[in-house]
């Protein structure tokens, strides 16, 4: 077969064009595949969240704090420098500094708000942890692996909600009644609320939610449109703590 210069250039040009088009075709065909597989709806999304109804929260009641700290062996250290807290109260102004003004009414001024780890969508504590001791589970729980924590406290600096406490001293002597089913922590590790993942594994709801007699705390899957939390979020106006920081906190407040 004889090939002239013109014929050679034609064939070569077509070949190069084919190589250039291939990646585009790949992308398009993969997108179609993904579309098809997601239609089956096998995977059910799960995103755990909590709604705190401050209207139902009775002043002076500490049932949720007692329940949580009892179940999780949280030490009761009076000295605020050393204190460890998983769920605690703070005045409205301090809890929601960007929603505060001089004339706040509705009984919110100075009244306590229940605070806990926000189990953020985009947790800054997870991002800074050098050992991956803090990580985010698929269901949204921001968990700690105390075995891996080296006590560097980067996470405490990163968390804009003050949800993390460092064990400056051995917590054991400060635990009134040790729950043998849950480990205590040791000196030199950071700890925080774990959304009661150990209770969820047994099919129980979080201890704070269970202990609240006034239904001020509601817990559930926020991805499920029929869940109780979604119903409450639909029918009430809710706010979150410092949403402007972009952490995507998952504790919603009715004020």
């Amino acid at each position, binding site marked *: 077969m004889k090939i002239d210069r013109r014929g050679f250039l034609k064939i070569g040009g077509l070949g190069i064009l084919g190589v250039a088009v291939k990646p585009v075709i790949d992308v398009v065909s993969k997108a179609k595949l993904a579309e098809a597989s997601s239609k089956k709806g096998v995977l059910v999304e799960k995103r755990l969240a909590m709604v705190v109804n401050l209207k139902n929260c009775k002043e002076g009641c500490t049932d949720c704090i007692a329940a949580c700290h009892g179940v999780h*062996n949280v030490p009761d250290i009076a000295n605020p420098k050393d204190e460890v807290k998983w769920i605690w109260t703070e005045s409205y102004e301090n809890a929601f500094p960007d929603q505060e003004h001089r004339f706040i009414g509705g009984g919110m001024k100075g009244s306590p708000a229940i605070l806990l780890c926000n189990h953020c969508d985009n947790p800054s504590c997870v991002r800074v942890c050098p050992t991956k001791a803090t*990580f985010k*589970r698929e269901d949204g729980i921001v*968990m700690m*692996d*105390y*075995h891996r924590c080296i006590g560097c406290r980067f996470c405490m600096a990163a968390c804009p909600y003050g949800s993390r406490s460092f064990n400056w001293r051995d917590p054991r002597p400060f635990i009134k009644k*040790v*729950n*043998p*089913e*849950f*480990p*205590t*922590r*040791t000196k030199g590790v950071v700890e925080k609320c774990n959304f009661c*993942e150990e209770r969820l*594994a047994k099919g129980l709801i979080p201890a704070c939610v269970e202990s609240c007699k006034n239904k001020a705390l509601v817990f559930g899957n926020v991805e499920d449109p029929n869940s109780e939390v979604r119903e409450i979020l639909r029918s009430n106006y809710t706010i979150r703590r410092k949403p402007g920081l972009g952490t995507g906190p998952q504790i919603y407040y009715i004020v």
Partner: protein
Amino acid sequence: MNNRGMIIAGIIIFLCLITFPIWYNVVGGKAAYTPELKIVSKEKQCVESTKYMRSQHMQLLNDWRNSVVREDKRTYTALDGKKYDMSLSNTCLNCHSNKADFCDKCHNYLEVTPTCWNCHVVPEENKL
């Protein structure tokens, strides 16, 4: 070689001193002692065979820990198909409730200090 006597005597004294721990134990009758574990257990069989547990329990516990904390998988299926809840405090120590006679004896003998019990709670010794 004027000081031959002195040198040989010196070497002998040196050897005696450096082997002191060995012959001290031989004379004291403590040679080749192995710790005797007191196994107090409600069950006849541990999670895996005794031989496996004796050599690999630390690895097993590490795997359990990673599985529970990291992957939220809490059920262990043993070789014989039995299922166990992966928990040091609630599964292991539920049977081996005599930590002092069981865990510590061997760990002390081998001079290992696992940090498990800095956090995990040792249940009060059950009288069986």
